[in-house]
Each structure stands twice: as structure tokens, then as C-alpha cells.
């Protein structure tokens, strides 16, 4: 239900960051979403087109990487991967634990931009400098 607000936050964040690369177009945005984050990836994708319209992210791809839940087992003294989100017991020794080390992520990992425009403008500048000298 809150996927649209999540997508809107992603669009705001990336729009802000892409200002450092004037003239660039965003091609792809990569998210890391924890298995325990309660976010429906299909809904994110469904909202993506509408939410990115009229922004530097328009027509970009959304790539979502699901991050499994990792808990720390005090008995085994190690971080263990959980198969699902139905039981929070160590798969090795069955000890219950609330010490989660991963799995709640709602993170923008990176985005990919088309750098061509920057490249061309750099060339133009370089040529202009050469002509002057």
C-alpha cells in the first residue's frame, strides 16, 4: 500500500543526486530491498512509470535486488542466513534470536546515467579552448 510513497522517495533522492551530473539522463536505478521490508516489488514496478514521468528518471529501468534475512546466533557465534520469514531460529542449532543483521533494507544502491551529453559538452569546451590558443 505504501509502495507509491517508497517510489516517490526514490525519485526525489535520485533526482537530487543527479543534479551533480547536469544534462544526464537516468537509465537504471538499483534498489536493495530486505526480505523483511514488507515491500511488494511488483507494486514498485507498477508505480515506477507514473512516478518517474517528467523527471530525469523518465523511461529508466528499475532493478530490485532482494536481500535475505541474516541473523546472528549467539550459540554458534556466527551470522546465519534464514530461509524465510516464518521462524527466527538458527538453522544450525535451533536457538531463537532477535539479533537481525540484514533483511530490513530499503536502500537505493546505485543509479546508472547516460554520460554522453556531458562528454560532448566537455569536447566542445576542449575544442573552444584549443581554438583560442
Amino acid at each position: 500500500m505504501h509502495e507509491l510513497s517508497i517510489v516517490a522517495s526514490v525519485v526525489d533522492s535520485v533526482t537530487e543526486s543527479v543534479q551533480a551530473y547536469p544534462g544526464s539522463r537516468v537509465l537504471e536505478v538499483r534498489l536493495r530491498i530486505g526480505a523483511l521490508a514488507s515491500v511488494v516489488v511488483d507494486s514498485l514496478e507498477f508505480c515506477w512509470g507514473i512516478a518517474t514521468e517528467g523527471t530525469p528518471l523518465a523511461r529508466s529501468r528499475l532493478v530490485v535486488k532482494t536481500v535475505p534475512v541474516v541473523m546472528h546466533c549467539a550459540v554458534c557465534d556466527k551470522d546465519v542466513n534464514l530461509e524465510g520469514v516464518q521462524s527466527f531460529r538458527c538453522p544450525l542449532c535451533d536457538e531463537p534470536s532477535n539479533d537481525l543483521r540484514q533483511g530490513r533494507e530499503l536502500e537505493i544502491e546505485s543509479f546508472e546515467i547516460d554520460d554522453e551529453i556531458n562528454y560532448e559538452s566537455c569536447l566542445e569546451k576542449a575544442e573552444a579552448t584549443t581554438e583560442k590558443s
Partner: protein
Amino acid sequence: MTTRIVELRRSILKKNDELAATLRQRYATDGVLVLNLVSSPGTGKTAFLEPTLRELRARGSRVAALVGDLETDNDARRLAASGAPVRQINTHGICHLDAEMIDKHLAGWEGVELASLDYLFIENVGNLVCPSSYDLGESIRVALLSVTEGEDKPLKYPTLFNSADAAVITKMDIAEPCGFDRDLALKNINQIRPGIRIFETSAKTGSGMEEWLAYLEEMASRRPS
């Protein structure tokens, strides 16, 4: 075409998380214990808060409540009957409360200073999914479940139950006619959040309320003063 990858590694809810951290700091400085109550619609959050506010006030504690709903101020009016200051937050369609709504409603709250409170209760919008992502800076997140909802609710909504600090089972007075399997419910809650404190309550008969109030007082006494 030249492309470039820009690493961001930033929380999607960064704005909310940062504001929640500021609020948490403020609650600590002002010495107020803040609880965020989350459940499905109809679990009985308001009915549970009514005697909670009343009883804490009767014991001399200073309490207030913020209550979130999509529309109407019905819940705020019900809770205000306890004599405690109560403010309604209408989200107009948004399915959860966020830190900004809390910050805004604390700011313009006439006659209420955080520093003069012992407890602030935040009754979230009835929803077991979305509120789990939005930190409100609370000290204690309480997940509520009523006997009419089915014992497998914690298994269906693990994100919320796993992030809770305490669980409350409501409407225990009708557990029997509902065929509520108490042992199974307790087992399921523990499966999702091992070792969590669980309170079995009835707002109608008052059963379990004494234990709940003792827990609140114990948590409040742990605050640095």
C-alpha cells in the same frame, strides 16, 4: 553511449529516519516514554488506550496521546474523555503515520509540552503492513492482536511483529466463544519475535491491565532522569 554508475547506498526513507532520530533524541531529553501502537483496524487500540490513559492518570502520571486515522476525530474524542490531552492526526488516505506528521502535530499542540509528560501514546493508523517501515522515534513499538483475528496473524505479518517490543492480545473476554487457541497464538508470536513480552488483556473486564500498567511504569522508570 558512455554510461556511468553512481553509487548512492542511501536509505530510501532517509528523510523519515533522520527526523525520527531527532525525535528520539528529543523524547530522551524531555524524559517522556513514547509508545507506538500498531494493529489491524478493529483490534481495539482505542478501547485498550482508554483504560490505559485513565489508569495512568489516576496514578498521578502525566499522559497524552496522538491518534492517527484516515478520517474523523472519533478516536480522539473517545480518548479525550480520560481527561488526557489528545490530538487527532488525519492522514487523508495515507496508510501510516510518519515522523513528519508526528513532528508537525507536536509543534502546534496547544498546552502540551513534551518535557511535562511521562508518557506519550501514538495510536497508528489501523494497518499491519506499512507502519512497520516508518520509525516515529518511539521507545516501544507495541503490536496488538485481537482474539477474533486468527492465531496466525503474526505469521502473516512477520515484519510488524518482528519489529515490535511488546505484544498485546485484546478482547480476551470473548476468547472462548471465538474458539481462540491461546497456546497457538502465543507460540506464533514467539516464533516471529522470540521472547517478546506478551500481555493478554480485556479493556472491557480490565483483565491483564494491571500487568500492562506495571510494565509501563517499569519502562518509564528506566528512563534517564
